[in-house]
């Protein structure tokens, strides 16, 4: 298949269909409205179902029902909508159901604005809803990656029976770039013998997250932790850019990483040795990539479209061995190449 020029949000919709997703439940919110609009057009033609729910709360619970019934299912929203969905996400994680949730992040807190931000990192990565649970969080930085990671998200979700979130931002959702749809990278997932499909010739199936006996609930949580440990082991993913000889290592994800990449190229021309680790999975956090450079680098700098969220995970990965600095803009403001360069120069200067 050749390349086509597509808007990020529509590319997510098409990627979902290519991955075999036939059910979508959502509620409108800017800046992700092209996802439901695209799927409303496409899904009926693929014998699928697009349904606009009465609220995000309802949408995520429709996802719960459909996932429990054995379907590949997706929902998408943006920050305030994801806050409403956290109730359902906690239940889905508790009941161990596979689904894909897209968050095209906008500035907050509260109603915030409609411009791009990365200020939902804590909510996505640390839980958001109640209980000891984890969601796999993927952070694309190009429209091509929106496609590749969305497709992969369905496979990861089915393989681990866990919700997977695509964490993008308004820029990614709205920008157009050439994309190619590659065949689905299939995983060897188990058949969904647990799904509620009508019991027929088998025992009753129950989809549930209630465990009234504390010992039973603790055991359920310990089982979940075992799964999370396996995911951490196998799924952490990042990209390193010019880190081999880097004195300063920037950590940035998504759109911000593209700004940092330009800043790095320009700084290199001025003879400043700077590189970048770009986490692709935000949970599990790719701590190993930081381990690789912690001895050779002298300083780390986290750049985010927030006032400092991922920086905490970078600090945990570095574990006090090297200084970790932070630069961020928020509220829909985007860090400029100049600002990043200035911050790096300040750090280099501060060393002399």
């Amino acid at each position, binding site marked *: 298949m050749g390349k086509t020029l597509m808007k990020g949000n529509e590319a997510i919709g098409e990627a979902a269909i290519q991955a075999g997703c036939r059910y979508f*439940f959502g509620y409108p919110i800017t800046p992700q409205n092209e996802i439901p609009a695209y799927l409303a057009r496409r899904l009926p033609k693929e014998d699928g179902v697009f*349904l606009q729910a*009465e609220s995000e*709360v309802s949408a995520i*619970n*429709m*996802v719960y029902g459909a996932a429990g019934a054995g379907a590949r299912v997706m929902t998408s929203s943006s920050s305030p909508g994801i806050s409403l969905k956290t109730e359902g996400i906690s239940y889905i994680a508790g009941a161990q159901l596979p689904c894909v949730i897209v968050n095209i992040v906008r500035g907050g807190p509260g109603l915030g604005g409609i411009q791009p931000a990365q200020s939902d990192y804590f909510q996505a990565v640390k839980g958001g809803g109640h209980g000891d649970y984890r969601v796999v969080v993927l952070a694309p930085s190009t429209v091509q990656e929106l496609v590749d990671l969305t497709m992969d998200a369905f496979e990861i979700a089915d393989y681990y029976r866990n919700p997977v979130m695509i964490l993008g931002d308004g820029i990614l959702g709205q920008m157009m770039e050439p994309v190619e749809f590659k065949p689905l990278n299939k995983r060897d997932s188990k058949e969904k013998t647990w799904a*509620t499909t*009508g019991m027929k010739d088998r025992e009753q199936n129950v989809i549930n997250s209630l465990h009234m006996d504390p010992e039973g609930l603790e055991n359920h949580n310990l089982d979940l932790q075992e799964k999370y440990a396996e995911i951490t082991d196998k799924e952490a993913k990042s990209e390193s850019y010019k880190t081999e000889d880097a004195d300063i290592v920037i950590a940035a994800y998504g759109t911000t990483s593209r700004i940092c990449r330009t800043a790095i190229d320009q700084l290199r021309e001025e003879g400043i040795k700077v590189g970048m680790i770009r986490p692709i999975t935000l949970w599990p956090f790719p701590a190993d990539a930081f381990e690789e450079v912690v001895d050779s680098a002298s300083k780390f700098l986290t750049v985010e479209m927030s006032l400092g969220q991922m920086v905490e995970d970078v600090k945990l990965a570095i574990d006090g061995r090297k200084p970790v600095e932070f630069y961020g803009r928020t509220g829909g403001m985007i860090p400029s190449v100049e600002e990043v360069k200035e911050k790096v120069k300040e750090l280099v200067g501060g060393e002399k």
Partner: protein
Amino acid sequence: MVKVWQKPESLTDKVLHYCPGCTHGIIHKITAEVMDELGIREETIGVAPVGCSVLAYNYFNCDMQQAAHGRAPAVATGIKRVHPDKPVFTYQGDGDLASIGAAEIVHAAARGEKITTVFVNNAIYGMTGGQMAPTSLEKQVTTTSPYGRDLDHAGHPIKVSEMLSTLPGAVYIERVSVHDVPHILKAKKAIKKAFEYQLEGKGFTLVEVLSTCPTNWGIDPVESLDWLKDNMLPYYPLGNFRSPEKEGK
């Protein structure tokens, strides 16, 4: 020996956890009998609520999903859209359905979602210990209306059947009661009809069942049946509010 009664196949052997005299058990039984009589147990997917019937998945012997408080109609919608040929039902209390899940039930009905809801109205929150429900009656004393429900302060009890029957997507709405045997038989008939209409693909169906909560009403089971009759029936009249025949569907 002649067997005059046997437990429906659509119920498991698990012992019900409901309080003595609570009519949740009767409503489970007649729902299960309907599933048996229609021969749909192996196809049916049920959704349990949050409330005293949260463990309904332990009792109904069919595939079940447990939903968050109030969200059963949304969960059932997800299931039904994936399996349009399978019977799907929700079993919900009045706190679950008329309070936190009011939007979910209204919109499931408005969409004409082809599911059946068994709505158990006991005019109080059972599971959490007897708080005021949206269905609690005027002057009814609960832990959160200790001086009796004051309409001026807490608003009016919601007549769910009447409210939902204004929606064209709701094809069958009936209010029944289980305070005596003739009424139990009528209630079963209504639940059966609701499932039948669903199987015919007609639209949203709901049976509101007036039920007791001796524990939180603070009266014994027999008096509870009288309390239901004397206090709930006048405000919540029994009868059919919507049916495909009436709507010409």
